[in-house]
């Protein structure tokens, strides 16, 4: 004879294991949400506190800095006005004192090889001044060799003459100061 089970309870019977699992999942999700929230907020708070302190002190410093800068700028303008001319005069003197005639003569000795003779030479102590030189050679190729050496120094050839087998040229150029 077949048994027929009847549930006479008013409400459905609860599956204890399933209910516990559901409860567990709910609790876990709750814990996870809360943990994420707490993590987000505390991290933000920690970082913010440090940065806000920095930015507050930066703002204070910036104010002081701006005042100091303004006052220094004003004083620099005044000092420039008072000392610019004496400074320019001193710098110009130093520049002229540094100008070396010996260095220029050394350069010419290296540039003019054998077979050439410098007949006249004029050097002026000025930054833009050019060396003027009259040079003679027994063969024209000696002069050409000299021209080649002087080409990088803004060489200008005024004239070249041949007088009784002697080649004579008037040139000018600019020699850099080797002391610099």
């Amino acid at each position, binding site marked *: 004879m077949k048994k027929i089970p009847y549930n006479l309870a008013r409400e459905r019977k609860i599956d204890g294991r399933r209910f516990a699992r559901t409860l567990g999942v709910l609790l876990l999700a709750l814990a996870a949400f809360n943990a994420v929230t707490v993590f987000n907020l505390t991290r933000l708070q920690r970082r913010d506190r440090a940065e806000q302190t920095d930015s507050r002190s930066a703002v204070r410093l910036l104010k002081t800095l701006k005042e100091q800068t303004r006052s220094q700028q004003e004083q620099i303008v005044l*000092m420039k006005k008072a000392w610019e001319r004496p400074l320019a005069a001193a710098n110009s003197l130093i520049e002229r004192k540094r100008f070396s005639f010996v260095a220029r003569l050394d350069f010419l000795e290296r540039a003019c090889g054998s077979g050439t003779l410098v007949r*006249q030479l004029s050097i002026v102590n000025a930054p833009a001044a050019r060396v003027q030189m009259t040079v003679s050679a027994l063969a024209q190729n000696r002069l050409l060799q000299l021209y080649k050496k002087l080409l990088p120094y803004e060489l200008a050839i005024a004239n070249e003459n041949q007088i009784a087998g002697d080649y004579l040229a008037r040139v000018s150029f600019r020699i850099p100061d080797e002391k610099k």
Partner: protein
Amino acid sequence: MKKNKLLVTVLLALLAVSAAGCLFSFAYVSWQELSRQNRLRALQDFELQEKAARALNAEYREWQKLPGALRSFRRRHLLSMDEFAAFRRELDARLAANGLRAPRIDLSFGASRNGMRKVLVKFSLEGSYRELKKFIFAMEAKAKMYFFGSLQLSASAGKVKGAFTMEVVLGE
């Protein structure tokens, strides 16, 4: 059964509140991140301004040192009238040491400018190229503020003739 239902309902409500809180925390963090970016930008500006201020401060200190440096430059390098006499002796000594003689030396005193007076010294020499170069070298090596303004050399019969101008700066 009722208790269980209530428990689940409460838990679901709490879960909803937590989820909302979590979402809010993300939104809040993003919003704070934006204001943090502004703060960081302000900090960077501050660093730039601090750098500029440091450079300006260095320039300011240099300008403050300038009067002293110029005084020291004048004291050490410009010649007083007494030292000008010493310069004349030095010039004669250097000429004699190199076997040179200047038949004539012309001096012309310029006007005073910026507390300085220039004296132009003109002379001509005749000797070997080596002697003239040694003389130029000896005069250039001196620390005092006198220097050659120009020189013109011309070669003739184994000798070199040189026309020199020198400038001597006197401090007043």
